[in-house]
């Protein structure tokens, strides 16, 4: 490839970086605008919208509500996903393909359809819309991601370690708890962070399965329907900083852990 082409293709990367960053940066900037109306140019700046957000009880309780949902649904997803991964990885049995297919099914169903299906199922089970229903739908939706990540890690576990533990007298449960599980920790942590982000960011399931109390994305959506305001920018920026910060931290953390366990 000649030099000109190489520069051209490099430019597409940086253009793409601009495309994904500029809208978010503009949104963050707008949160500091000293006027009720969204729009450029920004002539004067203020922090009032942020102080408003942090003294607004509704926003703060919504934030807490979203976090609780994210944590609880992640705990369920991780437990179930890991269990399924342990069953599927490295084992051949009748119906394995079918179980694998069913495991990844929730990840393939388009968002709105999955939300509708959960809503109907919750009604059938007699579960009222609200926190429990949201947690359940997020947990089910996130299981495939955990299962896939854990399976990938499990496939690299040397069989000899388990065999050695069994030879030394460990029963399968202790061998799992002391050899397999510690080996899976980086994958499980990585998957947990991913589930936390998916749940915290999820709109469509929270919207259709929620009761009167909104999660953070649902609250932003409701506020947007009644008009744009820098207040929404401030709320959205708080959500953005939380999610992006958690993502960056997780990326560094899991990378370091993988390095440590591999050496």
């Amino acid at each position, binding site marked *: 490839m*000649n030099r000109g*082409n*190489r520069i051209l*293709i*490099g430019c*597409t*990367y940086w253009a*793409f970086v601009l495309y*994904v960053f*500029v*809208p*978010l940066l503009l*949104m963050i900037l*707008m949160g500091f605008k000293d006027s009720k109306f*969204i*729009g*450029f140019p920004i002539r004067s700046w203020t922090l009032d919208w942020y102080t408003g957000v942090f003294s607004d009880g509704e926003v703060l309780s919504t934030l807490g509500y979203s976090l609780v949902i994210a944590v609880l649904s992640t705990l369920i997803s991780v437990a179930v996903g890991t*269990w*399924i991964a*342990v*069953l599927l990885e490295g084992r051949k049995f009748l119906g394995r393909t079918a179980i694998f297919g*069913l*495991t990844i*099914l*929730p990840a*393939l*169903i*388009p*968002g*709105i359809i999955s939300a*509708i*299906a959960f809503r*109907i*199922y919750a*009604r059938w089970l007699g579960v009222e819309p609200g926190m429990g229903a949201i947690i359940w739908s997020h947990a*089910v939706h996130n299981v495939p991601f955990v299962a896939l990540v854990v399976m990938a890690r499990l496939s690299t576990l040397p069989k000899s370690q388990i065999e050695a*533990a069994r030879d*030394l*007298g*460990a*029963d*399968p449960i*202790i061998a799992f708890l*002391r050899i397999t599980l*510690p080996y899976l920790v980086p994958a499980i942590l990585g998957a947990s962070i991913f589930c936390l*982000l998916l749940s*915290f*960011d*999820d*709109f*469509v399931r929270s*919207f259709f399965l929620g009761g009167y109390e909104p999660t953070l*994305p649902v609250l932003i*959506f409701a506020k*947007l329907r009644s008009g744009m305001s820098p207040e929404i*920018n401030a709320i959205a920026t708080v959500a*953005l900083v939380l*999610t*992006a910060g958690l993502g960056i931290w997780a*990326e560094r953390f899991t990378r370091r852990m993988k390095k440590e366990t591999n050496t």
Partner: protein
Amino acid sequence: MRNDATASANRVAVARGKADRTFWGRLASWTPYRSLVRLATASPRRQFLILAAFPLLWVLTQHLGPMLQMLRVSLTDAYPVAVGVEQHFTLDNYTRFFGERIFWQPFFRTLTFAGVLTFCTLILTYPVAYFLARHVSRKNQMLMLLLLLIPFWVGEIVRTYAIMILLGNTGAVNQALKWLGWIDEPIPFMYTSFSMGIGIVYLTALYMLLPLYSALEKLPKSYHEAAADLGAGAWTRFRRVTLPLTLEGISSGCTLVFLISTGFYATPVLLGGPSTTVFSETIAGFFHTAGDEWPTGAAFATIMFLTAMVLTGVFQKLMQSLRKGDTK
């Protein structure tokens, strides 16, 4: 290492006839635990059944169950069933779809949009993935990929809102164009298929980028050099070597992006207008009203799901045969 050391220490302790005083040692010699383990692991068959029972139950009731229940509701004439009313099975909910234009038009619009946007995303992200995989050193690759990941950790709603600010009448793009003197009146980007397209591509680009990147990254550089040595120009090298060998990445990226694009609800509501109603809005409409419209909504969701599955299935088969044709 540590595990090995404790294990051998345990063995020594056992050999000397001393009790293992660690937590695990005590657990292993605790009688109820031991009899439980003996019961559970009596035979490989029983061990497997205990391991498999819960996952099987979970995927059947939690993953498949909601879809089956949706299908069942879509075949009934009333749901939820009121007291004293008999529920009948019917196909009316499905025939209703074909009867009215306001139903099937958004459906075909959604499929067309999703198809076109998937293609646009592919064209947009392929050079980016190519650059990352081929022209950047290993160490920088991860950093530059991470840079792209950051915006994608941010939620659907927040990113949709960012697009609203970008494209509004007093948004950044219009103000910039005005400042440049290219326009006098703001261009009404918002509430059109254009703004919706920009928003959806913005949300899905990463799901295309990652499969493409991993396919391109796996491709050995030597293939390129061999093709170049044999006299192939840049375009021929791309068309005959790179493209055929990354079809798998293209196929999975396109499938993912297509499925995700058909399922968006909030983005079309916020960025689209009355002329761009997509099928997810139609489906959602049946669930905002009182309960008796649920069967129709369920039927429409089933139609959507089956169509999306069939289309992506056919697409994957097509890509597979393309791949096979190339290796012959």
